[in-house]
């Protein structure tokens, strides 16, 4: 008996059965499809997750293709050469990779878009400069040091070394107290001191107001506009221009420079981009992307009195970076043609004839003849000028803080590279450029000659193979 009180068996209408079966089938199929979808290994079924990732941060490479900064697939930033060139390359935030210093910061826009850049830096020359500099900084107990090596004919920067060493992978210390991260060669403007005398002498020759044998009264000190200018190295009272460079006489060069108006010297220095912040050509104009270089600091020439002008003739009273000094000094190496330094392969380098070729050669020759003993390398001809600049501390020239410099050419007669060495605040009894910066230049020269495969020239008059230029 059923609920209706009849004896007929309960039946389900055929249509309902079909509907129920179809629903069960669709639900089952839906569930199966869902499971399949979410376990599907095929990329055709799912959108590729990698397509949404930003492009890998661009690479920085040395001139021979050696990677300087690369990103791994998981966007970790790597510096394969470690300590080498670390201040120039800079570093970024560990979490996001955003550039915080050096090229990593300056080129942030390009690198973020995945653009890779090839620098003119030669890793071997860079290592030579760094090895010599780090040793020199430690020996002189200097706060820091910088070396710039520039290829004379092309303006390519082969090395931009800074010391002490900075490890981009090590835990970072306070950027205010520990300055090892900074690219001093570009970012610190300093007074170039007596290295500038070579340029002032070239201006005097170019203007035909003096020759290398022109004599000048040069006592050990003189007073100008209430200020006393003194010389350090003892010398005769009467010097030739060549001897003025030899003894690095402030009195001699400032006296000779009075033969031209201050504006003239200022203009020559301007032509060698000493007052120009944009010493490196920009990588892009729209948007403007360029490598940061500290701005030179100089009073307008209209405010130069006799004392300011005298100071300027021997490299005091204005601030420029070691990079500025290198490019200007390279004018002497490049037979009087100023060549804009370049840091990236393919960058165009502007040129300008500043001195006659003969003027540049004469200055090189006299610098070579009067080269300080610590910069001499037996068997080779080297040429350069020392500098020891006083540093302003608390508004006054300090009696204990100096910058020791050396600006020179390798080789001295037909230069292939121009080298500038700067050591800031060397401590101890040796602090002059000739004592602490010149040996670094010599070290670099020795290793560059070995790298280039240039044998020393031997004295032909000696059967025992005595080296020339001892």
């Amino acid at each position, binding site marked *: 008996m059923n609920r209706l009180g009849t004896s007929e068996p309960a039946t389900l209408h055929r249509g309902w059965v*079909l509907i129920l079966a179809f629903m069960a089938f669709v639900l*089952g199929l839906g569930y199966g499809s869902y499971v*399949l979808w979410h*376990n599907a290994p095929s990329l055709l079924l799912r959108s590729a997750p990698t397509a949404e990732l930003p492009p890998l941060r661009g690479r920085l490479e040395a001139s021979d293709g050696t990677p300087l900064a690369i990103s*791994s697939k998981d966007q*970790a930033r790597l510096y*394969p*050469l470690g300590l080498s060139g670390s201040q120039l390359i800079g570093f970024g935030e560990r979490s996001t990779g955003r550039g915080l210093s050096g090229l990593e910061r300056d080129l942030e826009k390009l690198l973020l878009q995945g653009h890779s850049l090839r620098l003119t830096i030669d890793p071997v020359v860079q*290592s030579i400069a760094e090895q010599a500099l780090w040793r020199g900084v430690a020996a002189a107990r200097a706060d820091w040091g910088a070396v710039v090596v520039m290829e004379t004919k092309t303006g390519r920067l082969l090395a931009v070394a800074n010391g002490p060493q900075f490890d981009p992978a090590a835990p970072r210390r306070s950027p205010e107290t520990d300055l090892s991260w900074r690219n001093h060669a570009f970012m610190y403007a300093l007074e170039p001191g007596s290295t500038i005398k070579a340029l002032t002498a070239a201006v005097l020759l170019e203007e035909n107001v003096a020759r290398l044998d022109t004599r000048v009264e040069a006592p050990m000190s003189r007073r100008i506009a209430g200020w006393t200018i003194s010389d350090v190295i003892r010398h005769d009272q009467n010097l030739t221009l060549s001897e003025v460079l030899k003894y690095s006489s402030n009195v001699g060069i400032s006296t000779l420079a009075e033969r031209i108006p201050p504006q003239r010297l200022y203009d020559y220095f301007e032509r060698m981009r000493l007052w120009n912040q944009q010493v490196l050509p920009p990588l892009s104009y729209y948007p403007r992307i360029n490598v940061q270089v500290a701005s030179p600091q100089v009073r307008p020439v209209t405010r130069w009195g006799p004392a300011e002008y005298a100071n300027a003739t021997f490299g005091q009273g204005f601030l420029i970076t070691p990079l500025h000094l290198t490019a200007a000094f390279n004018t002497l190496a490049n037979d009087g043609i100023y060549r804009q330094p370049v840091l990236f392969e393919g960058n165009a380098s502007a040129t300008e004839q500043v001195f006659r070729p003969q003027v540049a050669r004469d200055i090189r020759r006299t610098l070579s003849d009067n080269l300080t003993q610590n910069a001499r390398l037996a068997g080779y001809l080297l040429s350069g000028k020392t500098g020891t600049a006083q540093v302003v501390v608390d508004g006054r020239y300090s009696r204990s803080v100096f910058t020791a410099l050396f600006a020179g050419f390798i080789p001295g007669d037909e230069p292939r590279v121009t080298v500038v060495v700067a050591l800031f605040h060397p401590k101890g009894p040796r602090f002059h450029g000739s004592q602490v910066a010149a040996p670094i230049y010599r070290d670099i020269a*020795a290793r560059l000659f070995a790298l280039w495969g240039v044998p020393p020239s031997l004295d032909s008059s000696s059967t025992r193979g005595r080296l020339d230029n001892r």
Partner: protein
Amino acid sequence: MRTVLRWASIYLLLLVSLTGLGYFNQQLNGKLQAHLSRETDLGNKETRLLLQRYQLVSPLALRNWAEANGFVPMSLARWETRPLGEPGPLTPGERSTP
């Protein structure tokens, strides 16, 4: 009733096939994850080895190694002149051969 059984058997057959396919896919997915993980590990290893390689053969490392092993730059070595063809003096330990 026969219709119900027929449809039910078809449904069960499809469900079993679907479950089998799902299981197969899960296995495949597991393998894929393992491969992806291995790829990441190999990528990390490649990065580590790349860094190690450059640390070992970077110009700076080579210079330090050469210096530590007594190599002297050619420009700082001792030089002497000798007529062409004339043998040099014997170095200690070197034997003369006819």
